[in-house]
């Protein structure tokens, strides 16, 4: 059994999710202690419990300590099973975080799986569905697996009620090399509104177009039909010859549309400043995929605490070398077989 200190590094839910995925993939029992010990409300919260329960479901795991506020969890996985999984997150919790926990596991099943996840689809501090669609799924595709996503209905805090369909066809992952964008970037913007005025989206897109120097035609507004609750998100999509990136922000009650859009602008500018094909959040996810593939190299921004924490967890489960190489204003992440 591998024992992890859940309060190390980033010290939040990421350690737990990565540990669950790797435990199931490597069929190694794991014990996580001090879960979220430094947080205002330590221990497992609802969304973490859902991640544990879902992961346990797809690999038939025995679990001890899966309770609210529990700070210690033992997870003993069984064989990964393909199938049709229905996962209700509840409380507008993020469906995408759970999906990113399950995808690496179900990659190791013998046959394709389909998932229906309900809850939040555009949450703060979680990858929104457009990111998974435009960045994550294509990267998986290039490495050898197929992830098809269909957003049936978006869900926002506080009402939730979103529904996301995913179909994953496993394949043997191949190492990935992604060191440059390979050419010019095409920018496009999108905003979604649910149950609130489309003028919010208009104002956000206006700010993006003005600040990032593209014409108004680059923006698209999605209005949710039959909304289940109020909500808004805006994102910029960067398309370039070697791939894509998505930078997003979720609207919040009491925060002006211009302020929401400004956050996206700043992050896009930081990405455009250098030839970086992989943004901060993508770097995080790609690290796990490369480790599972047994190798990979990619250029990204300075590694976040999330990423280095992820690396520490991966090293405990897999025989890989992970190096973060400072290459001037950018960084190169190198994942290779040990030895």
């Amino acid at each position, binding site marked *: 059994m591998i024992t992890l200190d859940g309060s190390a590094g980033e010290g939040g839910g990421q350690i737990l999710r990565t540990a669950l995925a790797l435990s199931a993939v490597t069929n190694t029992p794991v014990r996580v202690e001090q879960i979220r010990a430094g947080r205002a409300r330590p221990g497992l919260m609802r969304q973490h*419990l859902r991640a544990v329960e879902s992961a346990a479901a797809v690999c038939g795991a025995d*679990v001890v300590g*899966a*309770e609210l506020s529990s700070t210690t969890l033992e997870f003993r996985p069984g064989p990964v099973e393909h199938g049709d999984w229905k996962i*209700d997150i*509840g409380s*507008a919790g993020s469906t995408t975080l759970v999906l990113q926990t399950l995808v690496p596991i179900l990659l190791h099943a013998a046959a394709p799986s389909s998932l229906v996840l*309900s809850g939040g689809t555009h949450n703060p501090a979680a990858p929104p569905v457009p990111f998974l669609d435009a960045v994550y799924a294509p990267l998986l595709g290039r490495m050898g697996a197929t992830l098809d996503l269909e957003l049936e209905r978006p869900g926002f805090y*506080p009402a939730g009620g979103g529904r996301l369909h995913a179909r994953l066809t496993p394949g043997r992952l191949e190492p990935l090399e992604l060191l440059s964008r390979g050419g010019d970037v095409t920018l496009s913007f999108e905003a979604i509104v649910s149950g609130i005025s489309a003028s919010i989206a208009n104002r956000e897109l206006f700010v993006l177009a003005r600040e990032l120097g593209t014409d108004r035609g680059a923006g698209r507004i999605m209005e949710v039909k039959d909304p289940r609750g*109020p909500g808004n998100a805006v994102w910029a999509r960067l398309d370039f010859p070697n791939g894509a990136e998505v930078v997003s922000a979720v609207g919040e009650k009491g925060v002006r549309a211009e302020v929401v859009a400004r956050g996206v602008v700043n992050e896009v500018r930081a990405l455009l400043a250098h030839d970086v094909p992989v943004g901060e959040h993508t770097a995080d996810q790609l690290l796990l995929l490369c480790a599972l593939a047994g190798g990979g190299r990619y250029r990204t921004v300075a590694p976040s605490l999330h990423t280095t924490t992820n690396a520490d967890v991966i090293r405990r489960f897999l025989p890989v070398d992970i190096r973060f190489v400072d290459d001037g204003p950018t960084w190169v992440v190198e994942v290779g077989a040990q030895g």
Partner: protein
Amino acid sequence: MTRRPTHILGFYGTQLDAGLRPDRWERWRPTVSLFQHDDLQVDRLDLLVPPRWEKRAEGLIADIHQLSPDTVVVAHPFLAPDPWDFEDVYAELDDLVQRLDFRPDDVDHYVHLTTGTHVAQICLFLLCESRQIPGRLIQTGPATRGPGPTWSIVDLELSRYDRLAARFKARREAAQGVLRSGIPTLNPGFAALVERLERVATASRAPILLQGPTGSGKTRLARRIHDLKRSGRLASGNLVELNCATLRGDQAMSALFGHVRGAFTGAAADRAGLLRAADKGVLFLDEIGELGLDEQAMLLRALEDKRFLPVGADKEVSSDFQLVAGTHRDLHASVAEGRFREDLLARIDLWTFHLPGLAARKEDVAPNLDWELERISEELGRRVRMNREARDRYLGWATGPDATWRGSFRDLHASVVRMATLADGGRIDRAIVDDELVRLTPHAGPDRAQRVLGARAASLDRFDRVQLDDVLAVCAAARTLSEAGRTLFAASRAERTSVNDADRLRKYLARFDLSFDDTRAARA
């Protein structure tokens, strides 16, 4: 999965939970908010729905289902005829509670207190507190400064709240320290003495002797001893108090030990006497040193055998009492002078407590001042207060070198009574305190000799002046020359060496060219 399920019982809030329009999500809805917390997972909600709200409650349930698809929501019609009538609501809730399946061993039950009428909230509280509902109270609140709505458990165990616990502790300590056992003291020595006294009183039935200056609180302590014995079921009888200095002659025997009818002239009926009145209780004999030798002998027998002979009786009676004796005298000196029986002293001297007077416990002036103010307020039936300035002034003087407190607590008591009597509207102010301090200060103004003699007083020897001062004080208090004489020469009168006290006093005054009428000027 080993997780314990969470069940919540609560009302559909007809005000706060209502709403079917899209903007309902912008508002805080208490019951909905139960499902919006990352650290609260509800497996079942029993929702009490008043009549005519079923349709809207269905909308609420749909919203809950969207937020928390796993939660089972069970709607119960709540049919109390009048939701503001206590009896209706309690009866309806009680019926419901009987029907619901509470399994506190396996399930965490909560009662949501934020919705429903106030009457409903009170009923839910009562049902929880009486454990009819084996759950805890949960309350929800809207987002204030934080990121989202709030929830919290209302724990009815008050000691679990740090600040409340600290408050209770402070109150306990105040009760133990300042108002220790109803004896106000901040003096550690006295507090220790009281504690020792309490231990003895609760552990032993042997006589207790309280030795201390007049007014040092002997009576108060005797009452405390009786209270302690009563509360500890060590005594079931009464507290009987007697100041032995008030007893004279035959009356003393009879008052203490009782008499039978016809025992002496005027004994028209049987009299039980104080010893028997104190049977199974506490007998407090203050100034026991003033008790006559015959009575001392009888008391000794009553203490040793719990039996004694009432005056004129030919049969002994019994009384089992706890003796508390008080004295301001040094009884060992009295024994040497032949005024107190050695064997009785040996019997009552087992536990002797020496009480310091107020002058030796000046830190106790403040708590006793408060205590006296409380007491006088009770007696007068109106609140008597001292303003800050007056209190500071009084305490400043009372704890300073000018205050002798010769009458100890009795003086303090008298002083407070005087001030309270003069206080307009119950407020003792600076002017009243200043007047009182003049009264309390022995030489603050012209003394009696000076008032009567004027400038001539300066030519008197100190020796004579002190004597004259006391004589004048007695004259001032007496109605007639003869009365003043009887008081001044009481000792020689008892020995019959002086037959005309009035004449003796008149001659004394004449030495200063004073008549009895002149002494009236010495009255305050």
